């Protein structure tokens, strides 16, 4: 028997009728699945030709099924990875989201407290993580006094987190005053974006998992 085209046992051969059903099914969901290419007709006569055709069709159906199975396993695996990566990215996003201040002030607004509470949860879950808090100001004050104001803003956030149980050793502070604006230009839009604390993960980043 010239069945060398297929190494599969004969019991896995399927009838032409099933193939038609399968083709119909494939056609019905063609939006989601690629339609397999039609078998190339080969000029072979008699029962051998039929057997060859059936074998080919069986092999094709088998490989399609295997491909579908492998694909679904891969999908399940990547869905798990994606979930982990998403969680890590979300943790980083929460930790590094800047907080903003009113003019010449270092008081924490309700919105800022909510953002800090979210950071607090991540810091509590990952005790290896340490942050550097960088205070910034807008350009309107005196340059040297702004450096002290920036430090005051960073220290206000540090105190909020430390008061809720985060070790001071995990919270470094630094000030850049008005020297590193996030937004250029004059006007309240730019100024509001520049009156901020920025956060940098300086230790324990790997504990968050995923790839940066």
């Amino acid at each position, binding site marked *: 028997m010239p069945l060398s085209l297929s190494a599969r046992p004969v019991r896995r051969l399927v009838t032409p009728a099933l193939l038609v059903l399968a083709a119909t099914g494939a056609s019905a969901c063609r939006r989601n699945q690629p339609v397999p290419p039609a078998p190339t007709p080969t000029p072979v006569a008699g029962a051998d030709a039929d057997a060859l055709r059936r074998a080919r069709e069986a092999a094709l159906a088998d490989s399609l099924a295997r491909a579908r199975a492998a694909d679904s396993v891969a999908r399940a695996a990547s869905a798990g990875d994606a979930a982990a990566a998403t969680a890590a990215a979300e943790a980083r996003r929460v930790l590094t989201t800047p907080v903003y201040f009113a003019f010449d002030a270092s008081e924490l607004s309700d919105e800022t407290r909510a953002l800090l509470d979210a950071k607090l949860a991540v810091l509590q879950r990952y005790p290896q993580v340490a942050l550097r808090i960088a205070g910034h100001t807008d350009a309107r*004050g*005196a340059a040297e006094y702004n450096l002290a104001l920036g430090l005051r803003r960073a220290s206000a956030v540090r105190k909020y987190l430390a008061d809720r149980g985060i070790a001071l050793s995990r919270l470094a502070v630094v*000030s850049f*005053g008005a*020297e590193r604006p996030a937004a250029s230009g004059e006007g309240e839009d730019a100024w509001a974006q520049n009156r901020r604390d920025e956060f940098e993960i300086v230790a324990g980043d790997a504990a968050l998992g995923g790839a940066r």
Partner: protein
Amino acid sequence: MTLVSILRRTTRRCLAAGAGALLALGGAVGAQERPGVRVGLLYGERDAKPGILVLPVAGAGGDSVRAILARDLDFGDRVAVLPASATLGAPAAGAALNYALAARLGARGVVQATLRGAQLEVVLHDVAQRKVVDRTAYPLPAPANGAAWRRALHVASDALEEVITGTKGIAATRVAFVHEGRIWAIDSDGANAAPVAGTRAVSPAWSPAGDALAYAELEAAGSSIRVADLRGGSRVVVPPQGLNVSPAWAPDGRGIAYAHGMDLGTDLWLAPAGGGRGVRIALGRGSDNTSPTFSPDGQRIAFTSGRAGKPDVYIADADGTNVDALAALSRDGADYRASPDWSPDGRAIAFQARLDGRFQVMVATLRDRAVTQLTREGVNEDPSWAPDARHVVVASTRSGQRQLWVVDTESGRARQLTRLAGARLPAWSPRLPR
């Protein structure tokens, strides 16, 4: 007009302080700085500037010599430099100056400079006396128009101004400032601008000897106080732990005051200039205190503080005691005062005050705490006094972009010093070593 006199132009500030005492002091200082020269040329009227004519200078580079001397004298704001005259040239060798013509042109003094090889001879004629009252030779280091060559001319200008007015000029000084994160320095006439130190630097401060610049470097994990020796090399005076900014040299050169911040506010500290452990000199009790400046005798400091809420300028003894608001009773309407600089004569403090939302530079006289607004055009910040205690350099937006400008506190006259957009945080040098 007769001979010489110790009379010289007095200032509003001086008048308030007692003109007689100041004039005697000025004469004594002049005599001390320049032995053998006791006095300045007579002023016809107390407030009139003496007219000075700078004669054309023959030879290669002569035009530059004349232009630099004339401009230096003009920038000093103490004499009226007369336009070059086609009818009065340098006298031929052995011939006398045409004093009658000089007098008709309005000159009370005539500057005659002569290039003699690698030397410049500078002669000052007193027109009324019809004679030479000063003759000095200066070495001119090659090449012509190089930094050292120009500096030699500035030294000559400053000496001329002292003979003419009794007050030494400020042409042979420099201004340090911040541009694009680096510390730069520029000659007082705007020449030779070049970066000196730093990569993310702010707040340059000259050593009293004029041979080094302290500044703050903003590093990723904190800021440090560093000193750049202008003959080469630099050192860290205060390491980058916490906030360390706004250095100011004590007048004895041994200590550097600076603002140091950790958790509970920012206080003033004093560290040995050579490096080492600092000590706290002002108790802010949790408030923010920055930008110290010493009185010339080193006994007092002025600084910015937020201790009463809004930032304001305070004065204290150098050990931080006896703190007093500088302009508490001022009616300037300012809601923010900062960045003080104590004048080299000890009589005044310049600072910036926010009036109607814009910073302007103000001058407070210490005898009566009277505050005068010095600038009105654009936003003006970070004043620093010249060693003549008369001119200040400020960062100003009056031209549409931030540049450094020199303002005469007597006349209000202003001139643009830099051509570098964004230049700021200027610090005028003391008298520089030869």
